[in-house]
Structure formats: C-alpha cells, structure tokens
C-alpha cells in the first residue's frame, strides 16, 4: 500500500467532513466520508497494515473533533477514536473473504459495520474516560441511550454515503499501490490445459 496516498486521503476526507458539516446531516444524524476511506483501505491493503492505518485515521479524527468540557472549553483527546477505528477495522478484516467487492452494496454494508463497531468502542471509551477522570461524557446532558441511537443511525448514514465515495475511490485504485495476488489452485479444469 502506498502510505502517502492513504495519509493524503485521510487528511482530505477529515477536512471535507469538517468543512461540509451539515451537508450530509438529517436531524441529529450526520454521515461522514472518513469511514469509507478506511474501509476502502481495510478491504484491499495487506492485513498486517490495516490496524496501523486505522489507528492513524483515528488519530486524525480525534484531532479534528475536540470534546467540549463541562465548563465550555474544548479539549482534543487523542485516543477514543483511535481505539474506535481499531475495533472497526478489526471487525471489517474478516469480511474481506465474504464480500463480493464489485457490488457497491457490499462495500456499503462493510462501512456500516465498521462505523457501528467504531461507535460502540467510542461510547465505551468515553464512558471509561468520564469514570476515570471524573468529567462528563461528550454527549452530556443528553442520555447515553439517545447517543447510541444517534451513533447507529450515523453508521447507516455512513453506509449510504459510502456508495458515491467508493465509486470515486475505486477509480483511484491504481495509485493506492495495493498488491494483488491471484492464487492458482490446481483442479480438473487446469489439468485439461
């Protein structure tokens, strides 16, 4: 995998997510581009690199999303999304052999699964942080249940947004430098050649 292309793609996706803001928002639910970029990488890059690449994307996402403390001051906490994206990527890796990647809906499903697992991890880490540091959770004063619902609806939104994003990313595939291996399995058909 070409790391420089991946880093640029992650930074661009994060910047566009920050700039486009409410464009992909319905009510309290907002879809983002970054999960599609990570899943695109996770489905094609060597397995040993997927986790590290997801960790990097999580770090960038954390830098772009400071939490607002109870006194109204913002604070960048590098970590919650790093762990969230790591879990999301770990959930996507087993899907590599199951998905028919030419079907756009399968990519969309993979993004939804990634985002759902990432949301779950982010909520757990945020609760742990509030317990350890004695602060409030980022979604305060809303309830945890409402946040879970919002995050999971957001995961569905990410899946829908993945359709056009994957269309664009697929056209840039040659520059990503993904190694493609074709495994030849001996069989009756080959023996006849």
């Amino acid at each position, binding site marked *: 995998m070409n790391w420089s292309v991946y880093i640029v793609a992650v*930074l*661009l996706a*994060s*910047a*566009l*997510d*920050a*700039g*486009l*803001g*409410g*464009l992909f*928002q319905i009510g*309290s639910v*907002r879809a*983002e581009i*970054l999960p599609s970029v990570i899943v695109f990488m996770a489905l094609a890059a060597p397995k*040993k690199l997927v*986790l*590290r690449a997801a*960790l990097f994307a*999580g*770090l*960038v*996402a954390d*830098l*772009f*999303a*400071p*939490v*607002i*403390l*109870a*006194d*109204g*001051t*913002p*604070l*960048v*906490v*590098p*970590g*919650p*999304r*790093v*762990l969230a994206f*790591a879990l999301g990527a770990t959930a996507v890796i087993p899907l590599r052999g199951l998905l028919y990647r030419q079907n756009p809906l399968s990519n969309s499903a993979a993004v939804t699964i990634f985002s759902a697992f990432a949301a779950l991890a982010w909520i757990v*880490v945020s609760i*742990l*942080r509030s317990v*350890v*540091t004695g*602060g409030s959770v*980022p*979604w*305060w*004063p*809303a*309830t945890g249940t*409402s946040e879970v619902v919002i995050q999971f609806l957001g995961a569905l939104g990410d899946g829908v947004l993945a359709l056009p994003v994957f269309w664009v990313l697929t056209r840039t595939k040659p520059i990503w430098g993904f190694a493609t291996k074709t495994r030849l399995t001996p069989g009756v058909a080959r023996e006849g050649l």
Partner: protein
Amino acid sequence: MILSRMPQFLSGKRLDWGLVSLAFVVSLAPSNLLRPWTNDVARLVLIPLVPVTHLGSVLRDRIRPSLDSFDPSRTGADATEVLALNDEIDRLRTLYESSRLDSARLEESLASIRATSTRAGKGALIDVAATTGSVVANSNGEIDGIVRINAGTRHGVVPGSAVFVRGDVFAGLTSDDIGAFISTVTPSTRLPSIGCRIVPASGSDPAQSILSAPGAVLKPTGRGTWTADVASAGELTVGMIARVADDRMPRSALGARVGRVIAIAPIEQVPLARRIEVEPIAEAREATSAVVVLEAGAVPGDASAITGAPGGRR
C-alpha cells in the same frame, strides 16, 4: 545494544498492541495533562488543511443554504431588500433591548455606588471593536461541537469574546484555544448556562420596566436546545425571544437574541413556575461567517463613565 534491538522488538503484532495500549492510556489521561499540547497539535494539523475545510464550507452553503435564505415573507418588493430590512429591524430591536437592559443595570449599579462610594475615580468604559471571520470548519463527530473561524490573535481575538451570526444572534464564545489566524468557538448550545430575559418577538413594552420581563437561566438539553424554569407570572407564549441578560457574558452580548421559545409546560411540583424549551435562532456551524466582538477592556480615567458598563467582561 538494547536500543539497537528495539526496532526488531517493536514490530508486527507487538507494535500494533503497543500503539493500541498507548492510545488507551492517552484516552484516559487527565485533562490537565492533555490541555498543554493536544490543542496546539490539532491546530498545527488543521492549519494547512484550512483551504480544504473552507472549500467544504462554501460548497455546503451553496448546496444546502440555511433555511432562513428561503424567507416566506416575500412580497412584490425586491426579496433581497425585504430580507435586508428585516435584518435591520432585528438589529435595531436588539440595540433597543440592549440599551433598556443596560439602563436597568446602570440604575442598579448607581444605587450600589451611591451606597458604597468605593469605586469613584475608576473608569469602566468599554472600548469595543469587531472582526469578521469565515467559518472554516466544524467539529467532526458531534453535531453541535466546536466551530473554527479564521480570525485569531493577529486579529485581536481573545478568549471569552462574544461571537455573533446574522447580525445580532449570540452564537457562542471564543474558547482559550486560539491560534494566530484561527480560533475555536464554543457554541452557545454547549455553554453551561446563559442568563436571559424572555421578551415578545415584537419587542418589550416600553411602558414597563425591562426587569419585569420573565428571567430564565437556559441550560443545554444536549439536543441542540435549552430548557429553563421560569418562575414568573409574566406572559409567556411560544415564539417569544430569549435575550442575553447575564453578567458572566461579555458586555457586547447583552440584549442579543439567543433563542426562540418553542414549548411551554407547567411544572407539577411548582405550580407558579413553568418550564420552557428554547431553540437557537441561528447557529455558528450553519453560518458562513461570524462577527467576533473584541472588548479592549476598561478605559481608565473617565470618571463620567464610571457606570458605563457594569456588566463588562471581567
């Protein structure tokens, strides 16, 4: 010897687990350990990407403008002129309410000064200037997270400055995370509380004291709105406007519109009080630009202006 073996030791799964463990530790680190460096690092990463985020903001505004752009009050007159006049009326109304609230505050302050006579000779005239910044980025992840504008210390922005959108709508305060060319705004819906007076949309009654208008302390609900308990027999109707009347806020925010009452419900335990829900009139994340009002502070030596702005920023 040990150092030379480190790259081999830290590779493969060990490296992955090491990075995950590091992320876990940093996630749970106390805020006072993170505050000195994480905001600065985030700003360093963001600044080169501001052209991209700004492009995104412009695209968003072109593709999905805020609903106020489609004002139904279009008549036979030029729509642009009608909107401009509406904005002008709102601004003048805010100035009027601001001066009334200020006058009431001055009267209280005068009484206090006469009683104590301790502050004589110290001026408190507030010197006000303003700078306009474009909204260049929103927080990823949270809907009503922080907003970044391209005005910073080079433009005179200081922490705690009032930020306005659409002329006179109080949209939040600048936080202490301010760079040379970029600053972070904590939206009004995420401030711990805002003291307000609830006045009719058409303006307060000049015949009555502004202090008779119901007061409320808006608390965020987490859904992008506020709730407040109003212990006043004054008239309360849906559509009334909440205007800032809070000594903790900058002087320039006094009287500014902040929200609109969208629901009123009785409180069973307190029959004389009512609970209201207030929605923001406009939010910084939906705006393309915002005005930051810079208050230079007290100008000493003006004895005549001793009571000029008792509610000025501390």
